[in-house]
């Protein structure tokens, strides 16, 4: 019935790609995550950051194996001991593999103080994958294998603290605590953000208004005083483990707002997307639309946001513990460790106690670098 009267047969236009080349075809059939990886890969710094994070993850998972000693084990002869030197050649210049000298205390008549000096009479070889102090991996699996170990003596790569505890081992255990707080906090804020932002964006109306005002309220409170007052509520008699959980939950509860906003914004803009509209006209159910269209579309953004919010978690824990409101001994975290270097004098006399700070800085940097790369890769379809 159309006004057009067409006789010529349908010509088939652009089937131009007769000669398909493989590389192109694999690009054309690449999934979202493959495209994101292609884009991410171009950021050299992000790749470095990712490598560093992988090391941190290993440290977190295998702390007992990587640390030669437990977090509370003491070397009573070596208090405030500075990092030990690693040697390869003995005094005669002969190559002897990797070794350390044990340290002995000597009373110095001139200064009237105890000096710690290397006992060069005997070399103590560093053994790799050797049996050492027994431990329970994650409190579950018994073992005594360590990455390195020194027989009949101690090895303190980062020195020791006031009680003679190995700073290197404690930093490794602190990594586990600090990162796990980050992980759990991020998961909590992920769940809260997704749920609250989702409800707010999906239902709209009054619920949305209330949630938005609540978020604005939370965000307008300066963070540090808020943490401090909340942390101060935690009963002093709680066990360190309970405090650990409380702090984690606290950090999670305060950081979901950004994510909730993002989820809401994405949902609202996505509801208007033509392809979501098309799915609805095609007869798709709400569940199918959310599952097939919406979630895949903002998953990548959520991952970016989570990565970016990690440093805030870590810094939050560090800050709280540092000012004495967060975790306490015998739990060790980077923040707890840094408590030992609270004044200039301490840093001046025992600069090695500051090692945990370097870890904090490196981890925060690594997360930011990875986050930058991911942000760029999050929408591989932008043109």
């Amino acid at each position, binding site marked *: 019935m159309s006004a*057009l*009267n067409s006789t010529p047969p349908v010509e088939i236009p*652009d089937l131009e790609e007769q000669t398909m080349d493989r590389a192109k075809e694999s690009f054309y059939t690449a999934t979202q995550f493959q495209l994101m990886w292609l884009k991410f890969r171009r950021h050299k710094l992000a790749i470095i950051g990712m490598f560093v994070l992988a090391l941190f993850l290993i440290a977190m998972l295998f702390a007992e194996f990587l640390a030669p000693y437990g977090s509370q084990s003491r070397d009573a002869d070596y208090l405030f001991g500075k990092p030990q030197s690693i040697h390869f050649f003995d005094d005669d210049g002969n190559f002897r593999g990797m070794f350390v000298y044990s340290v002995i205390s000597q009373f110095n008549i001139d200064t009237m103080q105890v000096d710690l000096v290397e006992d060069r009479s005997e070399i103590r070889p560093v053994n790799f994958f050797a049996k050492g102090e027994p431990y329970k991996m994650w409190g579950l699996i018994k073992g005594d294998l360590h990455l390195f170990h020194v027989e009949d003596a101690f090895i303190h790569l980062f020195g020791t603290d006031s009680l003679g505890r190995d700073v290197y081992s404690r930093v490794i255990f602190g990594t586990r605590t600090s990162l796990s707080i980050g992980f759990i906090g991020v998961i909590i804020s992920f769940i809260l953000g997704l749920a609250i932002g989702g409800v707010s964006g999906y239902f709209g109306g009054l619920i949305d208004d209330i949630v938005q005002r609540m978020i604005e309220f939370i965000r307008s409170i300066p963070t540090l005083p808020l943490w401090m007052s909340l942390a101060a509520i935690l009963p002093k008699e709680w066990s360190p483990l309970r405090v650990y959980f409380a702090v984690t939950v606290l950090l999670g509860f305060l950081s979901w707002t950004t994510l909730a906003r993002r989820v809401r914004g994405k949902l609202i803009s996505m509801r208007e997307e033509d392809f979501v509209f098309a799915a609805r006209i095609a007869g798709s159910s709400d569940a199918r639309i959310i599952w097939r269209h919406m979630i895949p579309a903002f998953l990548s953004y959520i991952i970016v946001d989570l990565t970016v919010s990690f440093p805030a978690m870590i810094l939050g824990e560090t800050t709280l513990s540092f000012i004495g409101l967060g975790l306490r001994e015998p739990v060790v975290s980077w923040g707890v460790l840094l408590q030992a270097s609270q004044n200039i004098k301490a840093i001046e006399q025992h600069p090695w106690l500051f090692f945990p700070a370097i870890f904090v800085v490196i981890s925060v940097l690594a997360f930011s670098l990875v986050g930058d790369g991911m942000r760029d890769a999050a929408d591989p379809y932008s043109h």
Partner: protein
Amino acid sequence: MNENDLIEIKNLRVSFPLDEGTVQALDGIDLSIPKGKVIGIVGESGCGKSITARSILQIIPPPGKIDQGEILLRTKLGSMNDDEHIIDLAKLKPDSDLLRQIRWGEISMVFQEPMTSFSAYHSLGDQIMEALLMHKDVSKEEARQAAIEMLDRVGIPNAAVRLNQFPHEFSGGMRQRAMIGMALICNPSMLIADEPTTSLDVTIQAQMLDLMKDLRRDFGSSIMFITHNLGVIAQIADEVSIMYLGKIVEQGTTMDIFHDQKHPYTSSLVEAIPKISDARKKRLTTIRGSVPSPFERPSGCPFHNRCPKMMPGVCDVKVPTPIDFGNGHKAACLLYE
């Protein structure tokens, strides 16, 4: 350079070195813009229309760069004794003082989306006055007066009041008018209009075209009018250049282009648009395939893989050069070689 020409572009080549490869956005453009004429640039999206315009003002988005070619401008600016002389814009540094004076002072530009060319934080009047104050030696009050007159001239009612309003308080058509007003405030010798009516509705578009015709008559400026709408170009341009993949494939008077096409691309393009007529409807002529990706420029004639008159063994091998059909009508097609 011809006496009557304001601008002459010679063998202009612009490329974008990207991670995926190099995009040859302009592949040897030759174009002259006579004084007081409307030159239409037509082509499908991505063929290099905007880059041609932006090259003239050296506002190519990074990482694009001019590799080769001259852009000669006849101007009094930058001359010792206030005489007309010819300068090569392609040789000037993008941030040089002279080029800054030329932008807006001598050549101004209107963009497709006027919202992006106005700042949202200043009143429209302030922005128009600013353009004038920067380029001409006038007092603030004179500038204000000139701005009101100009807004009035481009058909904005109640100009003295609307001067103080912000861009978002104007409708799309009014913003576009204001943009044209701002472009003309320094009385430039050329106006570049990059798809100025594309986002407007037909009735508003018709008003814009009228306005531009009037302005050309009153101010005598040359206009470089970029569009992909053949109807618009037929109505406004004196001469037309048809672009395809960074090359001008045909140029001539508007009559030549619409009634005596030489290049198969031009004829296909003109035949592909539905025309309002009383006649019985036929199928539209199509051009096969689509514009190739900028990373895959075809060999020989860039149009050969879509051309209905393609000569195998010739068109895919030899690069055509423009053939002159007299009276400035040129086409780069191997059918005529």
